[in-house]
């Protein structure tokens, strides 16, 4: 075991290297590119066996990833944002092939407007695809999650591809000290890939991903994938228990921070949850019983664990770093559906949207969120969803608009 300063991208590449991946189909996109550059360099200079190939698009990259996995090798790939969407047809398609592999998504906001900075609308678009999803908050967690993801996806009870998600810039380019596990310890945790019958061999001809006619066989295979994803809840718990036993780091499906005696909970995914964690500490110092829940596993959705952790709380603030146009926060809706009708469900489940396109969420905003929830608890009424935005930000945008108008007026007046 060695300890190094690694970016989130570097940690992802180390995860792939330690998982002894055979094949890395790639395509560059900010802020993910460092991952494939790192792996390509290792493969080029012989530090890592296997093959890396740059395709001409993410659509092709994900096709090649699925096809190689269907041929029986261990595959790793990475993308982000527009790339994930460009390949989305194949995200859904290859998930149904039941040929597991791991894909990193470095979260980045979606066009329009086009941006480089992070939020979770990209990964939410893959929510219903059949890929399982693990969301990370630290660089160490990125490396470890890649190893856990292979064990989860390759398990005979699951056999589905897994996305490991990390936030662009905040994690992808942030250096943190990361423990790099020993190869032997990783080999003990993660067996070589057994493709079972999902492979192409001359002696064992087979047809994969064939068409079906009619709703009955179609529904059968779709239900099978869903049930396999649900099996992932047990398999994930087993995998992280084994991981903790081997490496001493705990990665429960839902991370609960200072929740036991909390009256109010924040719920967040990804690296911005570390901001919420700091706010919890400060609120605690101010005498407020606030805690934080951070689902790491989003697919399969750990509903039972979330319901249990939220049981008996006075109020919950779900802070979504995504926005479903005309609906609101995706995570909020998922929690509401998990909690509905549960006897001890918190009476207030408030929705906040923030952190879009890399917009920061300040400590003061967390305090305000806690205050809003506290008032809602007192009033007995859940407030309408709130879009986080400050007066200063509005003033900055008004300035940009003023410049835009001034420039246009000048052009139009022919000066």
């Amino acid at each position: 075991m060695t300890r190094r300063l690694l970016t989130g991208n570097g940690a992802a590449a180390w995860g792939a290297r330690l998982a002894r991946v055979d094949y890395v189909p790639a395509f560059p996109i900010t802020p993910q590119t460092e991952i494939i550059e790192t792996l390509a360099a290792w493969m080029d200079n012989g530090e890592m066996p296997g093959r890396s190939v740059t395709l001409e698009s993410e659509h092709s990259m994900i096709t090649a990833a699925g096809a190689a996995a269907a041929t029986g090798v261990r595959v790793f790939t990475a993308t982000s944002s527009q790339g994930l969407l460009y390949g989305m047809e194949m995200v859904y398609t290859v998930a149904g092939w039941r040929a597991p592999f791991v894909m990193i998504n470095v979260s980045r906001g979606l066009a329009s407007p086009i941006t480089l900075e992070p939020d979770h609308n990209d990964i939410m678009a893959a929510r219903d695809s059949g890929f399982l999803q693990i969301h990370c908050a630290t660089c160490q967690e990125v490396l470890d999650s890649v190893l856990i993801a292979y064990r989860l996806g390759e398990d005979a009870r699951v056999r589905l591809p897994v996305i490991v998600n990390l936030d662009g810039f905040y994690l992808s380019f942030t250096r943190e000290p990361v423990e790099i596990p020993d190869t032997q310890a990783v080999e003990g945790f993660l067996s070589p890939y057994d493709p079972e019958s999902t492979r192409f061999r001359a002696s064992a001809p087979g047809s994969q991903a064939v068409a079906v006619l009619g709703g009955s066989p179609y529904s059968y295979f779709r239900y099978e994938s869903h049930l396999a994803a649900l099996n992932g809840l047990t398999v994930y718990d087993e995998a992280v228990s084994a991981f903790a036993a081997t490496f001493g780091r705990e990665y429960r499906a839902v991370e609960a921070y200072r929740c036991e005696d909390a009256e109010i909970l924040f719920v967040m995914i990804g690296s911005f949850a570390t901001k919420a964690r700091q706010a919890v500490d400060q609120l605690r110092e101010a005498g407020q019983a606030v805690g934080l829940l951070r689902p790491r596993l989003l697919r399969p959705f750990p509903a039972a664990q979330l319901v249990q952790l939220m049981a008996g709380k006075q109020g919950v603030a779900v802070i979504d770093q995504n926005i479903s146009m005309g609906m609101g926060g995706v995570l909020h809706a998922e929690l509401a559906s998990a909690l509905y009708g549960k006897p001890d469900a918190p009476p207030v489940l408030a929705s906040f949207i923030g952190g879009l396109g890399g917009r920061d969420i300040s400590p003061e905003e967390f305090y305000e969120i806690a205050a809003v929830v506290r008032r809602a608890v007192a009033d007995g009424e859940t407030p309408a969803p709130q879009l986080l935005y400050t007066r200063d930000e509005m003033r900055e945008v008004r300035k940009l608009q003023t410049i835009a108008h001034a420039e246009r007026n000048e052009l139009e007046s022919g000066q």
Partner: protein
Amino acid sequence: MTETAFKRMKDLPSTHLLGSGTPMCAGCGGLAALQEIYDVLGSRTVFINAAGCMTLLSVYPFTPFRGSWLYTAMASAPAGAQGVRDALDVLLEQKRIEPDEDLGVVVLTGDGAAYGMGLSATSGAIERNLDFLYICYDNEGYGNTGQQFSGATPHAAQTATSKGPRGFRGYKKDLFAIWTAHKPAYVATVIGAEPLDLVRKIEKAKQLNGPRLIIALAPCPTGWDYDPRESADIGKLAVKTGVWPLKEYVDGKVLHTKIPHPRLPVEDYLNKQGRFAHLFEPKRNTTLLEEIQQRVDDYWADIEA
């Protein structure tokens, strides 16, 4: 290159590898070509398919193939071939499978994928010098959705989306030229109605490494509107009128493998198909017929000289 095993018609296989009873239409020129191709390729192949008519060859739980099959999507069959080929290569290099477990990787798509949506993936695969065979069955339109025009549709053909008196306003894209511009190992045009020419080209392609691409003109009774029994005759006429030149590209040179002589008038080919009926009825469209003939004459002018 070794001497061909197919010197005359009686050298062609008399039993076929491809199973019968597929849901392809009666008289499908694409299936005729595929049947001839598969006999030469053999069962140690994995077909990587894109969305099109032939996606319906393998419908759960049936397949006419003795070998393997992977359906991908409309745009990315060559990328699927990349993944399969690379995975097999890794397994072979690391001695995780025996050499006799290897498979020939064959992309199978229609013209919709080959001429349009899949062109980027094809170009990428050729540029990466992928060792694969691409077979395009070209029925000159989006056949599986009811024959709307595609980038492969010939000038003046009526399709479900070009029903006007002049038919399709565009011109058939020169996919052969697009492919050869990439300098791949091999490119050839074939047609099921000329089986000897076809099997020799597949035989040659099979012996080469790198990107090898075959365009099979696929007379299509439903899309071209003619009686299924006419398929072979229409295929032969496509060659005899010079509308479908049989040629190959190898070592940087294009060679015509069958120069029609005498070359029949294009009308003989066009008037057998409902999609061109508007050129003859209710009134003969001399201008358009002459234009089509002129284009074919222009193509052959240099070659016949």
